[in-house]
Structures are given as C-alpha cells and as structure tokens.
C-alpha cells in the first residue's frame, strides 16, 4: 500500500534556485481511493509531542544545496557535507542520526512547510490556538482538541487521555485529561497513618458529592486514575533511555501504554525550549545540537521500549511556529511561521517527505518566513481518521470548520 507517486523536490530544482521554479508539490497526486474504507481500530495510541518555543525546522530537516538557505544563514546553516542525506534532496541535522533507522524502515514521515493558519509570531497566541485547534471560534475557546477527540471515543478507561509534562507546563487546554503525570513514580496516594487508599478515595467521593465543584470532581477523577496506575503492574523497562527529561517522560508514556490501562491519547511536552533567539552553537555541540539530540535519542529509545505496541502508536510533533529563514545577529533566529512535523509509528507511510514546499528565495517567503502550505490539522486529522479510526463526522467535531483532506501520511 505504499504510495509510489509521492514527489520529492529534486536537488536539481533547488540548485536552479530561481523563483521561476515555483511551487513544487510533494503531496501525493490524489487523495487515496481507499479513504473511507475501515482503518484498523485497534487500541491505537496517539502521542502528541509539543515542541514549545518555536521549532526551527530549517535546522533539522532542510533542502540540500540550497543557495538561498546558505545565503540567509551564513553562520547557522548545516553544511551539506555533514548533513544526513534522506535520498530525496533533503538532509537531516547530524544530531538526528538516531532517527535515520526509522526513516529507512519507513516508519518516519516528515511534513514540511506546515503550521497554523494564523501568522502572529506570538508564542502565547499560537500556543493557545494550537492546543485548542480553534481559529475564529469563540465557542470552542475553552476546550482543547485532545479533549474533544477524547470525547469522541467511548469512555472505556479513566486513563484514556493522559498528559505527561512538567507540572508547570501542562498544555493550556481548558479541559484537562484524567491523568496529568509529572513523574509516574510520584503519582501515588498520600501516606497518612490511619488512612487507607480506599478510605481516602471514599472520603473524596463523599465530600465531592456534597460540595460539587470542578476541584472536587477533579479530585475524585484523580483518585480513580491513581488507583488504576497503582494496581497496574508497570513493567520495568530494560531499554536504556538517555538521562534527559524528555526521555524520562517518554519512559513514563511507554510504561502507561504497556500497562494496558486503555490509554489512547498522550499529550507530552518536549522538555526543552526551542525559542533560540541566541547561540545555536555549532553543528556538533551547543543548544540546537542538544535539543535535536534529545529529541532523536529519546524517540529511538521509546521505539525500542514499546516493542510490539509500536504498530499501534502514532507520534506526531507540533510547534507553535517555525523561525525566520534569515539568522539574526546573535547566532539565533527570531519567530517565524511554517515549521515541520515528525510523524512516527508502525502505521506511518514513512521514509517520505510530505508537504508543499515553495522554496526559500526571499520572493517565496512571507515577510521572511516560510509560508504554511499544509495546515497542521491535516496531519493530525489523518492520524485520527486513518490510524485511530475516527469518522469524518467525528473529525469535524474535533476540528470544526476545517476542510480535511487525507494526504497519505498514514498507510
């Protein structure tokens, strides 16, 4: 079922380097005929990784031999000589080497020139819009898209939707998941002499029924979730994870998935800040290298840890915006628009680049920014419909007023 007609921007086209080359479609030539046929509806787990701060996709996945990129980034550009070629005229930052295995195995797809329809360059506005996936609609402004997606599923488990984040940075979704985990090892009942876990849970239910507040209902939902986590035997992993905070979160996410608790959505905050206005460092060390290395080593360990469940997992990364194409004077970049998404998992139509990339010549940019040609909701929509089994009607409630079209990222 692999799409063979996916067009990749050729190296030659880029070497031509002129605006006359124009738009080059790298999307499949048509919407899959198979769309609408029943996708597998096993316990697919959707893992949404939020790369906060504005992810500079041009530092991570970029066209090789592009004179506009080297002109715009005399200091920051990754030289072609050290980039990891993807075999389609594009290259990866060498710190992403641990992901090349997934690329070769066809389990990693890259979607370029993707992002939000809005172009405010504001962290706060864009992060808020993106967690809500809500544009121009006040009715939805207090609920997050993951919460809405969760409501579309039959509530089979209290732990259907989980967020794994630092407690200061759980996404601002409005509607919270049943379980927000800082560290799984800390997700425990209190230890108070004279009070059993059941006694405490009963107490919370009793006082919650007489004083019903959002706080009391969250308290009882938390107790319910903690009891399940407590009773599940969280399998100790033998996989060596790197000692990063991101890896620790992925390890907790893997433990939850493997424990059969019915987890379907995991909202996971990448534990680093991509908002690098200054000091990217070099290709081999420094801030950007560390961030990308954390990303790649963490995901590679996670893939090993989940084992057979990999077939039912789809990971996608989102970020509030990409960066300006031109570097600034501080060896960094300022806020831009389009970025790229990584989509990984056993059901991914990987080893391919998706998206419509218009080029990096100043005339092809929007105020110095890569234009968004693929709305990030196209990608998430594909994950929900083709991997997680959502009907188009369901998807319409998750992403209202959005014209979804499948693009083939999921097999």
């Amino acid at each position, binding site marked *: 079922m692999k799409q063979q007609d996916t067009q990749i921007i050729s190296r030659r086209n880029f070497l031509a380097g002129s605006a006359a080359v124009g738009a080059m479609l790298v999307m499949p030539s048509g919407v899959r005929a198979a769309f609408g046929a029943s996708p597998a509806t096993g316990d697919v787990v959707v893992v949404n990784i939020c790369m906060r701060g504005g992810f500079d996709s041009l530092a991570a996945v970029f066209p090789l031999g592009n004179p506009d990129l080297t002109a715009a980034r005399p200091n920051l550009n990754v030289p072609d000589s050290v980039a990891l070629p993807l075999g389609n005229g594009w290259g990866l930052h060498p710190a992403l080497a641990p992901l090349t295995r997934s690329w070769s195995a066809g389990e990693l797809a890259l979607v370029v020139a993707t992002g939000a329809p809005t172009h405010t360059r504001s962290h706060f*506005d864009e992060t808020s819009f993106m967690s809500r996936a809500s544009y121009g609609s006040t009715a939805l402004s207090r609920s997050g898209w993951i919460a809405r997606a969760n409501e579309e599923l039959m509530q089979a488990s209290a732990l259907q939707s989980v967020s794994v984040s630092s407690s200061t940075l*759980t996404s601002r979704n409005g509607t919270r998941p049943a379980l*927000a985990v800082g560290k799984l090892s800390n997700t425990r009942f209190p230890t108070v002499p004279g009070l059993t876990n059941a006694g405490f849970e009963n107490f919370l239910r009793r006082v919650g029924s007489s*004083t019903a507040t959002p706080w009391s209902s969250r*308290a009882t*939902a938390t107790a319910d979730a903690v009891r399940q986590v407590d009773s599940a035997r969280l399998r100790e992993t033998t996989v060596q994870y790197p000692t990063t905070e991101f890896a620790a979160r992925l390890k907790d996410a893997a433990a939850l998935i493997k424990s059969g608790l019915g987890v379907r959505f995991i909202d996971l905050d990448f534990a680093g800040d991509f908002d690098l206005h200054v000091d990217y460092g070099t290709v081999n060390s420094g801030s950007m290298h560390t961030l990308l290395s954390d990303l790649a080593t963490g995901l590679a360990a996670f893939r090993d840890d989940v084992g057979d469940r990999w077939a039912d997992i789809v990971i996608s990364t989102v970020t509030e915006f990409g960066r300006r194409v031109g570097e600034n004077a501080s060896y960094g970049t300022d806020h831009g628009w389009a970025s790229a998404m990584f989509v990984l998992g056993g059901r991914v139509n990987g080893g391919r680049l998706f998206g419509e990339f218009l080029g990096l010549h100043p005339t092809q940019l929007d105020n110095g920014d890569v234009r968004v040609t693929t709305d990030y909701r196209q990608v998430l929509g594909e994950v929900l419909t083709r991997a997680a089994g959502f009907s188009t009607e369901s998807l319409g409630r998750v992403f209202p007023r959005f014209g979804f079209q499948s693009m083939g990222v999921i097999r």
Partner: protein
Amino acid sequence: MAVDLALHLLRRFTYGSTIELLAEVRATGAGAWFEQQLDHLALPDVECDAILASHPSFGWGQLRDIREVTSVRQALAAPTPPPLSVFQAAKRNVNYVRRMTSTRQVFETMVEFWSDHFNINDAVSKGGGLLNAYGLDWEVSVVRAGALSSFGSLLRSVVYHPAMIVWLDGEYSQKSKPNENFARELLELYTVTPSGGYTQTDIEQAAKLFSGLRGPVQGQALTDRSTISTMYRVNDQTFIDTRQQNYGTFRVMQWSATATQPAEIVKAIDSLVAYLAAHPSTARSVATKLARRFVADQPSEALVSHLASEFTASSGDIRQVLRRLTAHQEFYASVGRKTKRPTEDVISLTRALKMTPDPTRFNVAGRADNLASVNWGFDSLHFRLGHQHTRWPLPDGYPDTDDYWNDSASHVARWYAHQVLVGTSANSLAGVSGAKWSELLPASATISAAAIVDALTARLYQDTIPPASRQAVIEAVSQGRPTVTSANRDTTCNLAAFLLVSLPEWVQR
C-alpha cells in the same frame, strides 16, 4: 448571608488568614487594616527580620547588584566559590520566609503579582550565569521597590534593568539586526497587549530603539562596562553600547521621537515608556490582571472598566487601584470563588498551624558563611507543586485561573505536600517546624474526634465548614482512630488536619 469582610479580605490579600490575624483585623477594621498594609514600610516586621538574620544564605538572597555578588564570591575563602545559582536559590527561600511570616502581607502578594507580570526565570543560566545574579537585584530594586508604587515608574525600572536586558536577549541585540524579543513582550505582555492594535512594524521600531541597551558587565571576564569608552552610562547599572545603538526617528503606535545621540535615546525610551504606561489598553490589561488575581478568574467588564479608569485617573497609582478594587461590590460578591495556587495552599497551611521556617534544616554544603549549596525542603515542595518563585519558564508568568491548576498532577502533588506538612516529617522533608498540636488545641478540649476536628477547623478555616463536610471528616477520623486517647492524640490530629485540607473548601480563596 452576611459576608465576613475581614475574613474575605485576608483570604484574598494574604498568604493565609489565622485566628490571631483575623481578630486583629476585626479590631482594627478591615478598611483601616488595608490602609496600614498599603503603607508597608511603616509596618514593623520583627519576626520575619529575625528569621532572615538567622542564616547567612538569607543575606545572599537579598544582595543587590552583580558587583556585590562577585565580591562576596571573591571574599569567600573556599577553593571553589559557590555557583551563582546558589544566590538565586537563596532568593527564593527569602520569598517563602516572607510569605510565611511577614506582617507586610498585602505587599508580599503584590511582589508575587509583579513577579508574574514581568516574569523572569532567573534560574536559567542565561548570559553565562549572569542572569542568576542580576535576578537578585531585579527582585530588590525593581519588583520590591515598585510593587506598590506607580505603574509608570515600575515599568521604567523594568526596561533599564540588566536582568530584563539579558532575559529577553537585549544583551545580544545589534544595530543592524535588532533583537525583537524584548520589544515584542513589552507590547504584548507588559503593556498594551494585542488589543492595543500594534503591528510588527511597531515591534521592529521599538527593537531599534532598544538595540544598544546593556547591563553593567561584559563577557565571562565580567569586564566593568564603565571602563569601555564606547559605553554611555544610563544609570548605575545600565549602559548604551553606542556602537550598537540605532538613531533617527522612531515610531511606535501613536508615539514618535527623534534621537541622534545617547542622551536623547534615554529621553526617547523614557517617553515611550510613559506613552505605553498611560495607554488606555495598558490600563485595561493591568486592571484585568489585578481583577483576575484578587476578584475572579473572569472579572466582569464593569469591574475592569472601573479599575482601568481609576488606573488612568491616578496615573497608574497601584495602591489607588487596589483601594477601588477592595471597595467594589464584585469583590465582596466573590467570596470563595478563586482557587488557591499551590504556594497559597501550602503557605496558608503553615500559617494556620503556626509552623515556621527552620533554617537548621537547610541541606547545606560548605561552611555556614561559604555555602556551596543551600537546598530547603520548602523550595523542593514548591518545585514538586510546579510553583517555585520566579521559575515559570515563559515571560508571561504563572497562570492565574483555576483551569490551569486543577489538574490531576496538581492534586497528587498537593496530597503529597499536605501529607508532609501535617505529618511527622514536616521538619525533615519540608524544613519547617512541625505543628505543635498541643498548642493548637484549646486547653479545655476533650479528647474526641469531633473536638479535634472542630478545634483544627477553627485554626485552618477561622470559620465553620458545611455540616456534611464536618461529618465526613469526623467519621473518617473515627474510622482511622476508633479510640482517641492522649497517646494517639497527635496522630489523630495529623489525620484530621490532612482530611480537613483535602476538602474542596480548602482551596477556595
């Protein structure tokens, strides 16, 4: 039902009411007490001062400028002087001590308010660690000096402060490529907000105006910039790097100014700050935040307009806006409608149960005058709760609505914090003196579950709780301790206190 004005005021404008404080406010009168609080420097603060004098690291948390920090480091005889982050940890500890014990409670709530509004996460090692050190002076000379002053003077001190210059990348700005980070947040977060209607061009113009601003030292060698001939001195700690400064005519929204030399740049910045501070959109944004902090997550349009017009009429007098806020009917109609953020939760617990900081419980490395690290369990507790002082990673400060804090990770962390604080490990794990139950119960109290629950309810709530909640606590205590005796009185108190702060009413502010 009559609103208990004194109790409501204390729950909103202190880190926790106590039986004693409530009695004092009732005797003084709520309005008169609030006026005393607004004149905070006139209030004696004996207990807090004594605690802060009791441990050298507290002094480190109150150092002023970077030169003082470096001289302390040099004066220390250790082979390896403490890292700058130690000073920053000490700064957080000083704040918790003040919230817990200071008589200047309204002032401390406003220190937290402005720490959020102009949030600088000075625990990150930005500027080669300099931000850690600048953060001390920021706290003292910007946030604490300006917390109850006028918004315009506070904003002016923010714009020129080296901590802000490093935090939002002004230190790296260049004439030909001005860094936009500070200019953007100045407009988006600190003053007019997007409703003010600025454009990307306005941000770029402001960034050009700020392109030369620099802190007092340069490079890893900490070269004093006053020794560099191309530096123009703005004030004691701030310079303009004349090589990186743009000149000409600057336009931001309806404001413009022309500057052709450094002294005129300072005048132009001052006038831009004054323009933004006086802008009606700034009045609304600050009014909204104050109303959200002290009245309701979603304050009414009427209240915001009322406070915004007072903000404008008083030229941004923060105290005057607070007076209007506390006199507004919506303030009194909002009893219990705010949710305690984690620091308010744990500190109100320590205050109600008369627990005090125990500096002997600092996990220190090194001699007392030469600490290599100072870790206080109470700061670790805040870390676990996701609410350490000035450690929110983004420039917009900790969220102030209950939907953010009411998540399961927060519930689990509060269970843990409550368990530690009311239990026998309070001293070892949180670094505070544990509750002395015998002093908290009336001498005449009979030893029974109900008597203990009622006595601790009075301590924790200074009020009654709903009968159904009271009954649930009593029954759960009786289940855990079927027979209450003098031998198990303290563990019964642990259990009763834990259940009382597990009630939904506990987090209501």
